[in-house]
């Protein structure tokens, strides 16, 4: 007789059912883990985006610097603006001490990477300001 003992059948199907339960639970855990990873990734992604926008966004950085230079009180003082190998070079001449204070307040509050800042007091008490930014 090639009959199969129903107990063996029950054992087989129960094993398959248990296997399926295990696999489903395993897949559930894996999915939950990836969802958690995605949440962390989203937060990290937004943080990286903010940091990059502030310090590693050449176009935006140049726009921010140019916007300050384009202000009415500084526009006439700008004598040089140049870009070379990732460095944005600017020069402002004949700034009064008040103008210098205002310019510093503006530029130091912008999210731009400053590489260097030089000041030279002229004989007429005005100031020549040279700055380099990393773009």
């Amino acid at each position, binding site marked *: *007789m090639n009959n199969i003992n*129903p107990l063996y059948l029950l054992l087989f199907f129960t094993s398959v059912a248990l296997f*399926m339960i295990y696999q489903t639970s395993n897949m559930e855990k894996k999915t939950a883990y*990836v969802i958690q990873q*995605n949440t962390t990734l989203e937060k990290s*992604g937004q943080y*990286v985006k903010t940091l990059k926008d502030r*310090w590693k966004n050449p176009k935006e950085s140049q726009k921010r610097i140019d916007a300050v230079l384009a202000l009415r009180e500084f526009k006439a003082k700008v004598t040089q603006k140049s870009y070379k190998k990732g460095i944005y070079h600017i020069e402002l001449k004949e700034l009064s001490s008040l103008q210098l204070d205002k310019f510093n307040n503006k530029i*130091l509050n912008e999210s731009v990477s400053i590489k260097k800042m030089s000041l030279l*007091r002229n004989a007429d008490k005005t100031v020549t300001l040279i700055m380099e930014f990393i773009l």
Partner: protein
Amino acid sequence: MKFPIKQSKKSTKTALIFLDKNSKAMQSEKKVDIILSPSLYWFREELLPVKGASQAKKLAPSLFDAVIPEGTYSYLAQKNGDTFWLFAFNDAEIAKAISNAGLRVNQIQNIYFAQNECEKADKALKVNENFALVNNEGTISLLPLRYIAESMDAQTFFEMHKRSKHKISINLFQNTLVDEKQLNRLIAIAIVFIFIYLGAYLMQQQQFKKVLTQQHALNESYQLPQTSFQLKGLIKALESKQKRQLSLRSHLKKLFKLSLKKGEYIKKFDVNIKKYTLEIVLKDAKHAEGIKTQLQKSSKITSAKVKKKIFYVSGTYE
């Protein structure tokens, strides 16, 4: 009642057993074919107004109803010329006889009725010292040997003749702890669970693929590196850059707020992230020390000298 285990002609690995209600226990590991004694089934030959064996089988319970003792029976019908051979047998009783004979269910290859296997016998077939199978007008029955004048060895007869095509299917698992209906119910429940969890698994798999796609999309949209190690490195580099820039702004503010006396001023000023150089015009050369002290609070002075009331000082940020 049984034959000693002998190899059948059909297969060298298969033994042939004549199984009776009173068969005694034996020791064998071989596969066996069983021929059921007439004591283990009821037989009737009937002329029935039906065409096929399956229809005849439906009529069998009512035909045996008044003949056989009360109990749970399985029925079988075979077409034999114009008539039908009808069998009734008790699965549990046969299973018990098999168990009493010391046989395991998985040893049993095929089961036959003596009715089918002895049809061609023209003499009585001696099955042991006391009994023989006789063909009584087409019905095989078991009779005491003392009533029989001439007989031949049943073993020899079975070896000489091939088995019939009428194998019987019997539920032999009568001795399990739970009955077959309960087992089938449990199997059905297990299968239902399999399907439920298979469905759940497939849905979960889809969900898993979806969140993986989301992860990929997040990496793409934020242009993040592939590994978390690289991501940590990127964040660290950006944070470090931010820290340097904020620190530079803090140093610049301190330099612009240097406490100078009236008439003193910064003539020249060079600052980058790491170091600074200042030229401060003084009214009094002694004030250089005060300025130096102020600068030392946030930097390390690398050189400081006063020449013609100009204080040349440079330093580095720690």
